[in-house]
């Protein structure tokens, strides 16, 4: 069955509560700051928001339900989306359908997390029952170790090298140097990347994201309402999600995008060569490469050649993770699932300040989340276009 289009839906007001390495604030503060920024950006009042999508790890034990009372809201649609790195596009999908159905008129989508000395370890130790019982006791390497195992197999299967991973990381750092919101802006050369200390081989320091605190958000509403509010907006040309794809693959060398990419591009009415920028979920460069393959930018197993053929900086042949990605901006928990979407929105709205991709009309955004046991379970992607 073919999914209906997202016609009539407007995507507007990308906001970010600036990331910080550590914070004394709780997750609710970061989420509330993103909400406040959405109101300021749209000139709406809090009661105008009648739909809410929330994602956070450190809001625990609270959920979106508790958050409504925390910030005094009475939404008629409420989504709690614990899909980690896939949550931004999934929030967009939920919000867009709620708006199309008339279940809500203006949906605020927000993700945010705090970070302190113990929050990351606490999160890892009890991330899921499978992780707690069957992964964490084996050295407690966290996602660095789990994705190192995937990277180990991927490198032998495809011929990918550390230089290929480094090409992506170095280009993202160059992009981050033009983004005042990026936490990591020091120069990164390929030599420095290669000389970094090992963390979980083959992953070294610059393959790994730095946990931090922060929040991101955006609004979804009918186009007519966005016009009436004089808010510049984007269209959603296509969007997909998938959970626990290919469960019989012994190692995750492909994600759910491979199941849904044809539907994505058919719904969008354009192809991979028609986007001017790509925002992948870069918890590790190898995962960005799985997305290039899964979303049809190159054939399966051929991302190493693809990486060698392209330049991924703002002025390069394929601008990728144009704000620096998580590798250079930091990973603010569930906000990492919003970062690429919010950056793509800024690019298409012409608000990317010193890092604007010239004449960007279409963007591909991809999400990946939740390493429940040995692989990430949630995948999502969207194609966005200027209105």
């Amino acid at each position, binding site marked *: 069955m073919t999914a209906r289009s997202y016609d009539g839906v407007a995507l507007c007001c990308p906001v970010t509560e600036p990331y910080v390495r550590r914070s004394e604030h709780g997750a609710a503060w970061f989420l509330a700051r993103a909400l406040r920024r959405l109101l300021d950006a749209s000139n709406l009042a809090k009661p105008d928001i009648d739909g809410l999508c929330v994602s956070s790890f450190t809001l625990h034990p609270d959920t979106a339900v508790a958050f409504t009372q925390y910030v005094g809201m009475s939404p008629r649609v409420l989504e709690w989306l614990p899909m980690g790195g896939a949550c931004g596009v999934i929030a967009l999908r939920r919000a867009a359908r709620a708006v199309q159905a008339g279940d809500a008129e203006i949906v605020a989508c927000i993700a945010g997390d705090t970070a302190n000395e113990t929050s990351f370890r606490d999160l890892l130790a009890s991330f899921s029952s499978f992780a707690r019982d069957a992964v964490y006791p084996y050295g407690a390497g*966290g996602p660095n170790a789990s994705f*190192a195992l995937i990277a180990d197999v991927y490198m032998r299967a495809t011929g990918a090298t550390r230089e290929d991973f480094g090409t992506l990381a170095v280009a993202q750092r160059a992009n981050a140097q033009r983004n005042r919101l990026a936490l990591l802006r020091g120069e990164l050369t390929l030599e420095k990347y290669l000389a970094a200390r090992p963390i*979980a081989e083959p992953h070294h320091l610059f393959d790994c994201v730095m946990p931090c605190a922060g929040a991101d958000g955006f609004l979804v509403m009918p186009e007519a309402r966005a016009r009436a509010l004089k808010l510049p907006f984007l269209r959603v040309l296509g969007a997909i999600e998938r959970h626990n794809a290919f469960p019989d693959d012994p190692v995750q060398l492909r994600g759910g995008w491979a199941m849904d990419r044809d539907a994505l591009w058919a719904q969008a009415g354009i192809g991979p060569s028609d986007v001017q920028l790509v925002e992948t979920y870069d918890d590790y460069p190898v995962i960005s490469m799985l997305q290039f393959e899964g979303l049809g930018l190159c054939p399966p197993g051929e991302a190493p050649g693809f990486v060698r053929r392209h330049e991924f900086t703002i002025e390069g042949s394929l601008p990728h993770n144009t704000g620096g990605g998580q590798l250079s901006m930091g990973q603010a928990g569930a906000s990492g699932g919003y970062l690429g979407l919010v950056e793509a929105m800024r690019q298409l709205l012409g608000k990317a300040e010193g890092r604007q991709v010239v004449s960007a009309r279409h963007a591909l955004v991809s999400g990946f989340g939740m390493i429940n046991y040995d692989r990430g379970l949630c995948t999502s992607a969207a194609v966005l276009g200027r209105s």
Partner: protein
Amino acid sequence: MIRLQRCADCGAAQYPPREVCAACLSDRLAWESATSLPARVLARTRLHHSNEPRFRPRLPLTVGLVQFDAGPVAVCFLAETAAPGDAVQVRIGADDLLEAA
């Protein structure tokens, strides 16, 4: 003893343990026990960083992904000599955890 779950209805083996069979949703699950189980090494990493202080004196640790001949995939500690593609025996080690050599 190392134990794997096997479904009494459809015969599927699974790990990590569950209260139902992930293939057919039966809850008639039996335990198969052995002193060690044959497996193949899929992947290997050397950990130079751990999020748990108790592991830090033992770094670097070698951790791998193995596929039991019975089908399921497990994360386990790996002997220094075990490399991807190798046939190994997986047993329960001193920490009550899986070790492959």
